[in-house]
C-alpha cells in the first residue's frame, strides 16, 4: 500500500511529459492525455484514501534512505482528503476545459504539472520537499494564468510571479532557520527537536515560524498579502480561474495547517502567544476586509476572488483555534470551499460564454438568459453563505463550534458576522439574477463588440463552430459542483467523525 504513495506525484508528472511529447506528433492531444492521467491519479488517491482513515498513517521513504535523512511521503486522513480533492477537481475541471479551452498541449502539460506540485505538497513529510513542490505549484500556476490571450493575463501572471516567489523565498528562509536550529528537515523529526526547547534557540524557532507563516500567508492570500490574487483570478482564463481558485490556496492553507501542527505543534503555540495572535489577527482582518472589498467590486470574478480572501480567513481562524472540532471544520471548509469557489468561477465562465455577462450589473435578470448558470450560481452562492444543509454551513458550523469550545468569543463573533458579510455580496447578485429585469441594452451585444477583452469568449470563438456554445461538459461540471455543494453538506458530519482520530493524533504530536 505504501508503495502507491509516490505514484500520487509521479502519475501527473509522467502525464505532463507525455502530453508535451504527444504534442510533437499530434496537436490538441493534450486533453486526452490529461484525462487519462487524472483518472489514474484519482484512482491512486481513492485507493490511498480508502486506507488512510485508520490509526496508522501511510509512510514511504524515497530512494531507500532512512528517515529522517531520506524524503518521507506521508498520507493520513487529512492529506488523503486534500489529495482526493486535488485529483477530483482536476478531473472535473478537465470536463469543463474540453470546450472552454485553452487547448494546446503545453497548456495541459502545465496543468498536470500543477496537479503534480499540489499532490506533492499534500503528501510530503519533508519540509524542504514541501518548498520544492510549492515552487513547482507556483511556477505552473504563473504559467497557467499567463495562458490567457488578452494583455491582462501576462500582467496578472507577472505580479503573481513576483509576489509568489517572494513568498516562497520567505518560506525557504524560514525552513533555513529551522534547519539551523535543529539540523533536520523531516517534519516529524523537526517536531521532536523543536519540542526539546533546550536544544533549540527559541528566537530561531520564532523567526522560523514568522517567516514560514508569512510565506504561506502570501500563498493562501491573507489580507494584506493577497494583492496578487484578485488580478490573477480575474485575469486568468475561466478554466484556470476555476482550477487555481479551487486548489492552489487550498493546498497552501493545508500546508499552513500541516506546518503549524505537525512541525511546530500545539506546545509552541501555547508558549508563544504572539504566534497565535499572528494567526488570529490574519484571520480576522482577512474575513472582514476581504468581505468588504468583495462588496465593492463590480466585476464578478474579482468579487469571487475577494470572497476567497475572506473564506480563507475563516480557515486560518480554525487553525488559530486549534481544537479538534475547529480543525475538522477547517478540513471540511477546505473541501467545501474548493468545490463551491471552483464551481462559482466555472459558472461565471459559463455565464460569460452564454451571455457575455461579466460584471455585477450585467447579471441583471440572468435567470431568463442563462437558467442553468443562474441556478447553479444561486445554489453555490447560498452554500457559500452557509445556509443549511449545504457544505458551506457544515464547515462554518464546525469552526464556530470549535471557537465556542475553546472560549474564543471574539473570534466566534467574527465568524458569525462573516456569514452576514458573505450574504452582503452574494445576496445582491442573487437578487439581480432572479428578481431584476435585464438591462435595456443586452450584455451580449456589448460583449460581442469587445470580444478582445473577453479571453474565454475569444477562445470559444476561435475553436467551435458555435461561437457561444457551452458544451455538455461545461454544464455537467457546473451542475455537478452545485449538486456536490449540497450533497457534501449531508456527508460532512459523517466525514467529520471519520476525520477526528487523525486530527486528535495531529494535535497530540510533540
Amino acid at each position, binding site marked *: 500500500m505504501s508503495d502507491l504513495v509516490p505514484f500520487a506525484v509521479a502519475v501527473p508528472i509522467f502525464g505532463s511529459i507525455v502530453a508535451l511529447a504527444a504534442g510533437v506528433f499530434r496537436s490538441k492531444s493534450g486533453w486526452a492525455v490529461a484525462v487519462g492521467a487524472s483518472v489514474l491519479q484519482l484512482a491512486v488517491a481513492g485507493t490511498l484514501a480508502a486506507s488512510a482513515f485508520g490509526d496508522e498513517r501511510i509512510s514511504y521513504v524515497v530512494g531507500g534512505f532512512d528517515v529522517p535523512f531520506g524524503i518521507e511521503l506521508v498520507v493520513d486522513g487529512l492529506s488523503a482528503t486534500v489529495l482526493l480533492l486535488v485529483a477530483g477537481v482536476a478531473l472535473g475541471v478537465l470536463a469543463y476545459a474540453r470546450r472552454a479551452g485553452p487547448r494546446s498541449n503545453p497548456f495541459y502539460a502545465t496543468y498536470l504539472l500543477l496537479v503534480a506540485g499540489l499532490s506533492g505538497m499534500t503528501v510530503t513529510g519533508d519540509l524542504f520537499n514541501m518548498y520544492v513542490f510549492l515552487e513547482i505549484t507556483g511556477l505552473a500556476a504563473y504559467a497557467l494564468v499567463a495562458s490567457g490571450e488578452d494583455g491582462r493575463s501576462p500582467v496578472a501572471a*507577472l*505580479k503573481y510571479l*513576483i*509576489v509568489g516567489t*517572494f*513568498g516562497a523565498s*520567505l518560506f525557504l528562509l524560514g525552513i533555513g532557520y529551522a534547519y539551523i536550529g535543529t539540523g533536520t528537515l523531516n517534519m516529524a523529526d523537526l517536531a521532536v527537536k523543536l519540542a526539546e526547547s533546550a536544544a533549540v534557540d527559541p*528566537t530561531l524557532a*520564532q*523567526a522560523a*515560524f*514568522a*517567516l514560514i*507563516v*508569512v510565506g504561506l*500567508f*502570501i500563498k493562501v492570500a491573507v489580507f*494584506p*498579502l493577497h*494583492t*496578487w490574487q484578485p*488580478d490573477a483570478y480575474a485575469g486568468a482564463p475561466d478554466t484556470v480561474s476555476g482550477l487555481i481558485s479551487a486548489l492552489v490556496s487550498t493546498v497552501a492553507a493545508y500546508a499552513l495547517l500541516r506546518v503549524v501542527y505537525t512541525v511546530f505543534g500545539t506546545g509552541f503555540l501555547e508558549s*508563544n*502567544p*504572539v*504566534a497565535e*495572535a*499572528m494567526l488570529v489577527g490574519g484571520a480576522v482582518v482577512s474575513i472582514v476586509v476581504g468581505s468588504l472589498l468583495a*462588496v*465593492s467590486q*463590480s466585476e464578478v470574478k474579482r468579487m469571487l476572488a475577494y470572497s476567497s480572501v475572506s473564506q480563507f480567513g475563516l480557515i486560518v481562524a480554525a487553525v488559530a483555534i486549534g481544537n479538534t472540532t475547529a480543525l475538522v471544520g477547517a478540513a471540511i471548509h477546505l473541501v467545501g470551499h474548493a468545490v463551491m469557489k471552483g464551481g462559482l468561477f466555472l459558472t461565471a465562465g459559463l455565464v460569460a460564454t452564454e451571455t457575455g455577462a461579466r460584471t455585477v450589473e450585467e447579471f441583471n435578470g440572468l435567470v431568463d438568459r442563462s437558467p442553468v448558470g443562474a441556478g447553479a450560481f444561486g445554489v453555490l452562492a447560498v452554500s457559500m453563505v452557509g445556509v443549511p444543509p449545504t457544505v458551506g454551513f457544515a464547515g462554518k458550523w464546525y469552526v464556530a463550534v470549535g471557537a465556542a469550545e475553546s472560549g474564543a468569543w471574539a473570534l466566534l463573533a467574527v465568524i458569525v458576522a462573516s456569514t452576514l458579510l458573505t450574504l452582503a455580496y452574494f445576496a445582491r447578485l442573487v437578487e439581480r439574477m432572479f428578481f431584476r429585469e435585464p438591462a435595456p441594452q443586452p450584455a451580449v451585444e456589448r460583449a460581442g463588440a469587445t470580444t478582445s477583452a473577453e479571453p474565454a469568449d475569444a477562445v470559444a470563438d476561435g475553436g467551435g463552430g458555435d461561437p457561444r456554445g457551452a458544451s455538455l461538459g461545461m454544464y455537467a461540471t457546473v451542475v455537478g459542483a452545485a449538486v456536490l455543494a449540497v450533497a457534501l453538506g449531508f456527508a460532512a458530519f459523517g466525514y467529520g467523525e471519520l476525520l477526528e482520530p487523525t486530527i486528535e493524533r495531529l494535535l497530540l504530536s510533540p
Partner: protein
Amino acid sequence: MVDPLVPPFVPVLLAAVLLPFLGRRTGHALGALASAAVVPYVWLVTEGAHLPVQLFGFDAVLFNVDPFSTLMGVIFGFIGAIGVLYSYASDAENLQTAFALGYVGTSLGAVFGGDWLSLIFFWELMAVTSTLLVWHYGGKAVRAGFRYALAHGIGGTLLLGAVIWHFAETGTFLFGSVPGGPETAGMAGGVAPVLAALGIGVNVGFIGLHAWLPDTYPRPHVAASVFLCVFTTKTGVYGMYRVFPQDGNVAVAYMGGAMAVFGATMALFQNDMRRLLSYHIQSQVGYMVAGVGIGGALAQAGAFAHVFNHILYKGLLFMTAGVVVYRTGEESLKKLGGLASEMPITAGAFSVAALSIAGFPGFNGFVSKGIVISASHYAFEKGPVVLGEFYTLELLLLVGGVGTFMSFIKFGYYAFFHGTYDGSVRDANRGQSVAMVTVAALCVVYGLFPGALFALLPFDVTSAAVVAHVYHTYTTSHILEGVALAALGLVGFALVKKPLSGLGRVPDVDNVHNSVTFYATRALVVGVTELYAAVDRVVVATASATTAAVRAPGAVAGRVTGSDDPVSLRADYSTSILLVAVVLAVLVAASVSL
C-alpha cells in the same frame, strides 16, 4: 337541570353571524330567539358547573356557573331579546343588529368566563363589537366611536396589565371560586387590584374616566343605544366584583357614592334626552359600584339586584327616549313638550321607568336601591360626615336619589307634560310597544313582589343567617324615605327650574381631556414625524456616503487625502512587495522580541 354543553355566547354569536344573510324578519326573529333561549338555559344549568378548556395554552373556563354569572346571564339574555325586538320595530338594519348581537354574545362570554383570561378576551371583544355598533350609524357617531374605542383601549390595557400581574403572583388565571383556582379569590398582590380598578373604572364610568359615556351613547341609532346602555357598564360592575369578591374596597365604595351624586347632578343640566340618560347610567352604576365596594353579602346582593333592575328600567328609558326621537326626530327636550296626550303608551312606560330609577315605592328601583343604602348604613364605616342617623356614603346615595328624581321630573315635564305639541305624533308602533310594556310590567312586578327578585340574588337578603342586617322592603321608614326623596325632588325641581332653563351646555371633564388629548396627539405626531425625518436624513446621508465609498473607494480616498484625482487602491507590484515586507518585519519583530 341542564348539562353545560355549550357556553351561552355560542348561539348568540352564531345568530349574529347568520343575521346579515337572512331576511329582516327571519333574522331578527332568530336573533331574539337565540338571545331569549339563553335565559332558561343558564337558569337551569346547575350551579358550580363549568366547562374547562385551554385558551392560548392556559387553563381557562368558558362556562362558569355561579349565582352572580347566572343573574347576569338571565338579564343579559332577556334584554338582548327585547333589544332585538325593539331594533326590528325601529327599522334597524340587519348588520347593526348583528353587531348588537355580537356585543350581547361577547358580554355573555365575559360574565360566564371562569378565569381572567377569558374575561379579558371577551372584554376586549366587547369593546370592538360595541365600537362597530356605534360606527355603523355613521355621521357624528364615527368620531365619538373613535373616542369610545380609545377610552376602552386604555381601560382594557390597564385591566390586561392587572391580569398579567395577577398571573405572575398566583401562576394561574382561574378565579378563586373555580376548582384549581388560587386559594384567595380576587386580584392578588398590591398593584394588580389598583390597575384592575382603574381599567374597569373606565367601563363603569369612574368620575374623570366617564366622559366617553355621555359622549357616545346619545349618538348612534336609537336601538343601538338600548344595547349600549346595558352591557358595557354592567359587565364592568361584574368585573369589579370579581376583583374585590369578599370585603370590597373603601375607595371604590366612596367613588360609587360620588358617581351617584355627580352623574345625577350632571344629568340635571342636560337637555339632550339620551345624554341625560347617559349621565344617569353613571349615577346608577355608582350605586352598584358602592355596593361592590362595601362588600359582604348584603351589599353585593344589593349591587347585583340593582344591576338587574337597572338593566330593565334603563333599557326602558332608552326605548322611550328612542321612540320620541324615532317619531319626532328631535333629540332636545327644549323642542319637545306635551307628548303625553299624543303618545300615551310611551308616556306611561316612561313614567314607570322614571319612578323605578328614582326609587319610588312600588317600583323595582326602590327595592334594590334600598338594599344598597341599607348596606351602606349597616355594613359600612360611618365616614367623616354623619348627619343624625345618616352616614357619609348613605348621605351621598340619598342625595344622588334626590338628584335622580329632579332630573326625571325635568325629563318627564319637558317631554310629556309641559305645554302642548304642535301637530300630531303617532305613538310607538306595535313592536316597540310590546317591548316597552313587557319591560315596564316587569319593573312593576319586581317592585311589588320583591321576593321574585330576591330569588334571583346570589345571597338571600331576608335570611339573618346570610346577611348582617335582614332587609325588609316595605317598612314604614323605607317608604317614608322613598316618598321624602320624591318630595325633595319635586321641591328641588320647582326651585331650580328657572335657573336651569337659562343654562347652556355645562362643560364636563371631556372638555379638558379632549383638548389635552388633541394637542398632545398633535405634538406627538409632529414630534414623531420630525424625529423620523431627522433620523431619515442621517440614515440616507450615511447610506449615500457608504454607497459612494463602496462604489468608488478610490474617489473617496482621494477626497480624504485632499487630492482631486481618485487614488488607485489596487496595489501594484512595488506596493505588493512593500506590503509583504512590512508585514514580515512587524511579525518577525513581534515574535522574536516578545
